[in-house]
């Protein structure tokens, strides 16, 4: 909201188009959000229901993997190719991934085993 925010006049057609587009976006976000809540619920449920660990562990890991993908693509817009500063944004995301991966690697290789 700085000096380069301009209030633009929009034509009616443009307004209607944006409105529709936003509504579709919104629906997508809500559905994805619901899916994530459901996944979390399933994760809790399998633990509470006391299934065998050989079932629980892969299921939770699988759900976690899907959640990461959803997070990145649905909520952090990784799929978008043309946003302003997309290069910087991608750099940040990948940097975060590299750092997180190093932690993971560290724990698996030199710290715990």
């Amino acid at each position: 909201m700085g000096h380069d925010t301009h209030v633009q006049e929009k034509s009616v057609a443009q307004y209607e188009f944006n409105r529709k587009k936003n509504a579709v976006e919104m629906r997508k976000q809500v559905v994805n959000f619901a899916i994530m809540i459901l996944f979390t619920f399933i994760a809790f449920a399998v633990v509470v229901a006391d299934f065998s660990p050989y079932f629980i562990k892969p299921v939770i890991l699988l759900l976690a993997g899907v959640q990461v993908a959803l997070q990145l693509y649905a909520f952090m817009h990784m799929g978008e190719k043309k946003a302003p500063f997309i290069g910087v944004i991608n750099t940040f995301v990948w940097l975060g991934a590299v750092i997180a991966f190093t932690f993971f690697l560290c724990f698996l290789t030199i710290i715990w085993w």
Partner: protein
Amino acid sequence: MSSVAISKKTGFGATLWDYLTTVDHKKLGNMYFFAGLLFFAIAGFEALLIRIQLMVPNNDFVSAGLFNELLTMHGTTMLFLAATPLLFGFMNAIVPLQIGARDVAFPFLNSLGFWLFFLGALFLHLSFFMGGAPDAGWTSYASLSLYSPGHGIDFYVLGLQISGAGTLISGINFIVTIITMRAPGMTFMRMPLFTWTTLISSALILFAFPPLTVGLFFMLVDRMFGANFFDHTMGGNTIIWEHLFWIFGHPEVYILVLPAFGLFSEIIPVFARKRLFGYSSMVFATILIGFLGFMVWAHHMFTTGLGPTANAIFAVATMAIAVPTGMKVFNWILTIWGGSIKVTVPMIYALGFIPSFVAGGVTGVMQATAPLDYQLHDSYFIVAHFHYVIVGGIVTAIFGATHFYWPIMFNRVLNEKLGYIVFWVFFIGFHLTFFLQHFLGLMGMPRRVFTYQADQGWDLYNFISSIGAIMMGIGVILLVVNMLLSIKGKPVNQRDYWGDGRSLEWALVTPVPFYNFKQTPLIRGYDPYWIEKHEGNKEGMTYAEPLGDIHMPHGSILPLIMSIGMFIAAFGALYHPDGVSWSVPVIILGIGITVACMILRSFKDDLGYHVHKEEIIALEEELYGKGGNK
């Protein structure tokens, strides 16, 4: 002070309301600065009490329990609630001016970040009056803190959670501001180093605070809701807290020291009257330090028994950070080298900083040597090390920058003579306090002890150390006196107070109007003001646009109310383990207030307003006389 209300005298109520609702980065910068100063004073007072207790052996000035509380609150406050906001104060006040922006990218979030930080800090400090402060050290290791009676640790967890959210929000705001709000021509490789270090340190905040949030959240549910993440008797693991804490904690020390480096990289070229030596290597070193800062956390855990492989790898990684840090030190020295040096108060802080910080870096590399760290760990040597980097690096930067930027921030000057006195009292006090602590550590004095037996060879050094601490206290009081005296001083009313300014902020005549730049500047190279000055440009900058209407954001009280909501919810969570009936309703009430504000905010479109050309011209005439800012 540097606001539009400069000449219109307004009532106290109106001024207060103005500050509670402001989204202006300059006012928020001042608020961060003074809030930071307040907590710096509180934590400094705690440090004095600690040093009085340790002045003589077998002292009973404070009890062991109170000592632990003072120690914990001193460390926690200094790092999270004093150093961080003081640096945020400078970032807010200076960075938008350096990049030619009229405000930060998200002014509303800027204000929210401040209020979350402030109320979180207030919450933490209420612990003193509500049954005892946290007492498990600023690191709050789970094996100790889970068993701490009373609510102290709960205050720590909740207070840091709230103020940490504020810090994270501010960090994101700075990243977006620096990436998207630069004036035309301000490419990345023309950004001043303070802007660069702010960007990198904000990126570190972005990546480092989430692990802390997770750790604090685990601690919260362990203590307040009966979970067992860190309880080994229930299958948890107490070491996980240490990992989470230090994955955050080591980047945190760089979050603080990088902006300090940035401040010195601004001060030194101005008073050496020479372009910063090795600009691009400075940028590269900043990025490299930021990245490596994430790869070394386990050097705080050598003695937990990670095993030789892990210790060796983390030792080498830690030593590697000394390389880019060394690059910076050499660049500063080479900037001074051959310059036509003008010694001023900011410069003398810079000259004191270089050797002090190098001493801290050298002891850091010693500690990074894992086998030696088995000897040094948890001794006074560690205390000496981190105070050399924190006081010698960060506090000197803050004090130096206070003198340096006072004309821009408040349109006044700090007294130079008193400035020198403060420097010498503080600097000598600092070395007296901490230099001998290296040897206390080597002689076996453990860290975080509330007293010690006489005749172990520690008595004299501890006594001298306490004298030094009192000198530092006097120095800080004199600095505050200097600030108060400046209120009575003459307004500066000019650009480039030091006469040798190089970056864009010096091109502005103070007091800076609330929109900063009446026309967005065009940046024609590194050190833009210096370029314009040497081409004889009397206006200090080339403009990228004609004079026109300026779009500015509205103020809002919502950030304060949102933060108060979190503050209320925290009390509910705090008393939940006591089994009181009102705890859950209070949590719901508090979070409800916050969520209601969020909903209100998202449904009410606030598009800001326009300052019209005529108003700008009128205001400029009022501030600078006929002809406006020329």
